[in-house]
């Protein structure tokens, strides 16, 4: 098991280096450089621009820039943000934590909700509930998350506010205005309320996806002989479904855990932009619009690293639940 883990970890290193290289060259293929943006003012003399370029290391040949940049990344120094004028290492942790809060909570909701729905559908195959849920799942699966987010805001914060419904959710930000003055319980509640809409908007499509796979996986297992045996020896239906069938159906589902991470992070870009959530997605969009190269490179690297890590995790989980894999 340890050997397997080490092998997988070592395999991830060239992948990450390749990703870094890809990011670097994509960014440097671009016309123009960040000094164009900052010093587009004609009153700034060319000497100052030249000076600035030298300070930022933009006058060196490409391979030197690449080498330096790679080396500093490997040491964990992500450089200096041109846009926000402070070290990226100061910006990233907070932003990363915000995004992780959002995506991890979404992920939990996705799997719990998706799996429950999938199980219900599989157990009652071809019933009315199954058909309705299948269609609903397809509907949510096909829905653009940004549009769904807008509709949620429209209903649960605008309409609810106008009509004075008991359930209202704030439309933007992570905390309310009077957050600082709340007690510990109030703070937690406030955060949960702010988290609710973004997490739903982010997760619903993937939850529908999980439900679809869960249904398929459960159906495949339920029709196997050992389930018939379990029923034949008089086990209760609940034991059969949750103990015998579910455990086997979980194997393919666990791999989805890693696969949904890129989807969620993609979705986070949109959802964070809409809900003004100060996370990675919003940071990367803002950095791109400000042509803040180092920040874009750092955030996209961190995102890619999270994805690689997620895949690694799902492979490891796969090996944990399925002994055939790790003995290969």
């Amino acid at each position, binding site marked *: 098991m340890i050997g397997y883990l080490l092998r997988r970890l070592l395999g991830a290193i060239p992948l990450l280096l390749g*990703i870094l290289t890809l990011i670097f060259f*994509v960014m440097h293929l671009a*016309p123009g450089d960040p000094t164009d943006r900052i010093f587009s003012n004609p009153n700034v003399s060319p000497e100052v621009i030249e000076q600035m370029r030298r300070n930022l290391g933009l006058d060196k040949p490409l391979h030197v820039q690449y080498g330096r940049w790679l080396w500093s990344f490997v040491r964990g120094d992500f450089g200096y943000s041109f846009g926000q004028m402070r070290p990226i290492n100061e910006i990233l942790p907070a932003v990363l934590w915000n995004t992780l809060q959002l995506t991890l909570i979404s992920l939990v909701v996705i799997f719990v909700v998706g799996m429950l729905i999938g199980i219900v559908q599989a157990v009652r195959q071809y019933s009315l509930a199954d058909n309705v849920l299948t269609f609903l799942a397809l509907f949510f699966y*096909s829905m*653009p998350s940004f549009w769904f987010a*807008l509709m949620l805001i429209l209903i649960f914060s605008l309409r609810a506010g106008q009509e004075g419904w008991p359930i209202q959710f704030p439309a933007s930000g992570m905390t309310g205005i009077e957050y600082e003055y709340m007690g510990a319980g109030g703070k937690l509640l406030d955060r949960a309320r702010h988290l609710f809409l973004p997490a739903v908007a982010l997760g619903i499509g993937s939850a529908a996806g999980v439900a679809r796979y869960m249904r398929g996986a459960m159906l495949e297992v339920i029709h196997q002989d050992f389930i018939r045996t379990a029923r034949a020896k008089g086990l209760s239906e609940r034991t059969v479904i949750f103990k015998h069938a579910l455990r086997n159906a979980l194997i393919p589902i666990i791999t989805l855990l890693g696969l949904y991470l*890129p989807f969620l992070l993609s979705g986070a870009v949109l959802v964070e932009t809409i809900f003004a959530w100060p996370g990675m997605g919003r940071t990367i969009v803002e950095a791109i619009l400000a042509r803040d190269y180092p920040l874009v490179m750092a955030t996209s690297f961190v995102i890619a690293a999270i*994805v690689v890590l997620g*895949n690694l995790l799902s492979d490891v989980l796969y090996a944990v639940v399925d002994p055939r894999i790790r003995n290969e």
Partner: protein
Amino acid sequence: MVRASPDVESVPPEPMPPAAPQQGGPPVRAGGAAWARIVTLVLAWGFLFSIVYLSLAKIRGIPEMRRVGVDIYLALATLLVIAAVLLRWTWRSVSPAHLARGRVKGDSQWAIAGRHFKKNRLALAGLAVMILLYVITLVTPLIAPFDPAAQGDIITSRYLPPGAEHLMGTDKFGRDIFSRVLYGARISLSIGFVAVGISVTLGTLIGALAGYFGGWVDSVLMRFTDMMLAFPRLVLLIVVIAVFENQSIWLVVVVLGLTGWMGTSRIVRGEVLSLREREFVQAARALGMGDWRIIIRHVIPNTMAPVIVSATLGIGLTILTEASLSFLGLGVQPPTPSWGNMVSDGRDALTQAWWIATFPGLAIVLTVVAFNLLGDGLRDALDPRLRT
């Protein structure tokens, strides 16, 4: 290793089931040939029109689009072509010559799949919606009640709620949303079509090369695929598009195409790995065929079933991604209507005009649902293991 996308199951096809002898009954039509012909026709047609639309959107600019005479002629010609095709099909299926010919042949893989597909109501509904959408894109100038860019008298016509005159209301500039949704369909569907064309071609080629040659070619190509998969697609797209600062539709299309091939290439590789050991490939090799010829003539055609499925599902996904990009302001640029940038317009006016964002979004949902239904139906029909 990153595992293949869960959307697409990479199962090697089972050997083709032996032709089921037809008991009594009328002779079976050569379903395979007809299917292939229809698919080729639709593909070529769709591709041509997509390119025409995308170029029109760029060069002439949408403001004149409705008034462009060519567009109306195109629409009329389409109606004629559709009528002609329908007539011909009906004639062919009843004409005595055709009935008399009735070739009794073994069922091809496609004919069997076609029979399974016809039993799947949902998938047929998806197909119907898809055909309807593409027909609508062709006859848009005849249906659209208003010019998608006509602003009318802004003071009296802005933010009108949906009603008899403006089916879906009007936006901030007094433009008719219904007309804009119709014109947006052209752009969104064309982008989906062309981008998926690029990504499927690329994916098939890369997957076939990796699977066929194996060894270092395989490891290099597959490591590259893994690397591309490690990026959330949207992040990669916005980085590339923002970095090039070129707001042309073609850039969006090409970049969408170049970032969507990974799923296809993984499936194709899996298929090719098993295909290259089959007797017919070995026979071709023994006959002295070159590797390329074997790949193009014998290997790739046998991987088409899962490729078609992933292309269908891919069009839906690409339309979603394009809408997301346009929503962020990085895709199709504002005067040209695309569903994504219309939702983005609606976002600014969400408090006073809910209809601006709602209807284009519903159009996206409808389209993507149709493509997903169709894709699922095709998968069930084409994969022998899923046939019930």
